[in-house]
């Protein structure tokens, strides 16, 4: 069933990239009104203000672009996180980053700072970055961050911030009402302005992830071996954490906490491309993009008038897929 494993990695990467392109086009063409490839092409290249053009350009294109960018971010973040903690369970949700963003959004709702999607983005970005910084500082006390220390520190910070969030939400019904729609995770209603806000963080994050790829290969041999081979373990971890923080912050800020996406793409990509990070990181990004675009599309198609949020689809459709992937072979990290 995984014929991809028998083709070389460049070919596999091209196949995954093709899947992203196909998902992108399908996301523009399908919805409550079905448009042909001709209509989509017309809308993108020579729009003249027809109904189809408006649907594609102002409704479907923005959310699809958001899904593409955020899918790449969260996919790469997942792969990096699994590598750095050497823990197959690592994902933004158990790393404190999503929890930090959630707390900031809830606080913003509480004091009335957050009213539009745009202001949620800034709150979530700040919260996510502060949480990442806290996890990084706490995990590198003493002799530096160990994989187990890192994973547990992330889980502890996430639990603490989550407790504060639920305390606030429980004492104030209005905040809960806003929070539950953010927490479900969705790309609906996000436009190019949101992409513009998070893109700088995403780009720096991707850059750092690429730089970190080779060092992460060395780290996977164990911290002592990596240090013996001349790697500055402390710096490699710092760069990795910074990349994870920026990418997750961008993702969570734009779409809410869709932590499972990182977990899913990390494992799927590892399954197809193996453990070498130069391949794994781009592959995880592309897998994440394809998964999020498709999840949004499915949510739109099955939901009818009230669509099902991408975060929900990703959990319910993505989880069986994930189970299928991890069942096949033991996970080597």
């Amino acid at each position, binding site marked *: 069933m995984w014929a991809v494993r028998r083709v070389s990695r460049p070919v596999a990467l091209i196949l995954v990239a093709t899947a992203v392109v196909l998902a992108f086009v399908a996301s523009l063409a399908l919805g409550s009104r079905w448009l042909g490839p001709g209509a989509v092409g017309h809308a993108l290249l020579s729009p003249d203000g027809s109904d189809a053009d408006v649907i594609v350009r102002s409704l479907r294109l923005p959310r699809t672009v958001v899904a593409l960018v955020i899918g790449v971010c969260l996919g790469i973040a997942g792969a990096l996180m699994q590598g750095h903690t050497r823990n197959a369970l690592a994902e933004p949700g158990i790393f404190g980053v999503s929890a930090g963003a959630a707390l900031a959004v809830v606080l913003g709702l509480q004091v009335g700072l957050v009213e539009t999607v745009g202001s949620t983005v800034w709150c979530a970005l700040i919260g996510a970055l502060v949480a990442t910084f806290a996890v990084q500082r706490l995990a590198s*006390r003493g002799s530096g961050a160990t994989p187990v220390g890192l994973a547990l520190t992330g889980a502890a910070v996430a639990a603490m911030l989550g407790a504060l969030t639920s305390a606030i939400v429980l004492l104030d019904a209005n905040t809960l009402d806003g929070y539950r729609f953010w927490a479900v995770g969705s790309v609906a209603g996000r436009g190019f302005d949101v992409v513009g806000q998070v893109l700088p963080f995403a780009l720096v994050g991707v850059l750092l992830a690429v730089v970190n790829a080779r060092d992460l290969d060395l780290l996977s041999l164990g911290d002592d071996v990596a240090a013996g081979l001349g790697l500055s373990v402390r710096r490699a971890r710092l760069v990795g954490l910074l990349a994870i923080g920026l990418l997750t912050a961008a993702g969570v800020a734009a779409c809410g906490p869709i932590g499972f996406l990182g977990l899913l793409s990390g494992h799927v990509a590892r399954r197809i491309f193996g453990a070498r990070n130069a391949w794994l990181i781009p592959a995880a990004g592309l897998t994440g993009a394809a998964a999020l675009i498709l999840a949004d599309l499915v949510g739109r198609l099955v939901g009818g008038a009230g669509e099902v949020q991408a975060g929900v689809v990703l959990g319910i459709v993505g989880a069986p897929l994930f189970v299928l992937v991890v069942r096949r072979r*033991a996970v080597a990290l």
Partner: protein
Amino acid sequence: MTATTEVAVKPRTVVLAAAFAVAAVVLALVSLSLGTTKLPLDEVLRALFGGGDSGTRLIVIELRMPRVATGLLVGIAFAVSGALLQTLSRNPLASPDIIGVNSGASAAAVGVIVLAGTGGGNISGAAERIGLPLAAVLGGLLATLIVGLLSIQRGVVDASKVVLIGVGVAAAANSLVAWLLVIGDVTDAGRAAAWLAGSLNARTWSDAVPVGLAVTVLLPVAMMFGRELEALVLGDDVASSLGVRVSRVRLALLVVATVLAAMATAGAGPITFVALVAPQVAQRLARTDRPPLLTTAMLGALFVTLADLIARNGLQVLQVGPYELPVGVVTAAAGAPYLLHLIGRQQKGR
């Protein structure tokens, strides 16, 4: 041969277990004495042993004791569940919070709250008293059953796969919860959120007794597997060369761990973080290479009782207002810094 078949019990773990147990009992007594009517400790003790006037006995035994007992018992159940899962999977992040038990229970319970809800935040008597805990137990067990069936391949249960498949099932259940919260009325969503945080408010004996039964039966069962757990820490190959039937033992202990967690969730909601933090803290304090079961159990009881004491009285003491927090908020907010402190100390020591 006896040297390999007997588990060496470190005195340190026994002393710690005893200390935690004593502390838990003392805090439970303090908890029984506090409330709208403050009772002196000697009156509480007299009421517990059948003395005192009938009014005091009513307050202590019928009103306050169920809550305190539920707290002690779910603390033990979650902590032991976490200790077993972490040992079986050799992963410190494994806990019933993460591998699907609590998520399955939550999805079922939130389903009852939202779908059977009247929109006014109330569900009718029978559905709430019986339906909610029952749904939680069934949801938790169903999730585990799915995880278990998917993890068995050619009769072998692979530990790392159990955990990962559990995470997948948990993700599906969690999305269901998020979706139910969104489609529900805001009052129902509020009720669901309160249940999800884990709370000991208004517990009755019908909450405490099922957890009590589960703990009485399953804690000794888990402790009987001490030698096997000791061997599993060293890896599957070593364990099976020591004569441990790895797959069978793992499946048995998995069942024990998930039944404990499912019963505890039915009793008090998915109290966050207890199952993750209690084994890690016990292991670090006892300086063992796996979470010591009895020490972890007593620490869990102590932890939940202390957290509930703070949850009930903390906001009044701080003069914020007459609110009670759900106990789950406190377990995470208080447990996390302590775990961070222990990790930090360990890293400095290296």
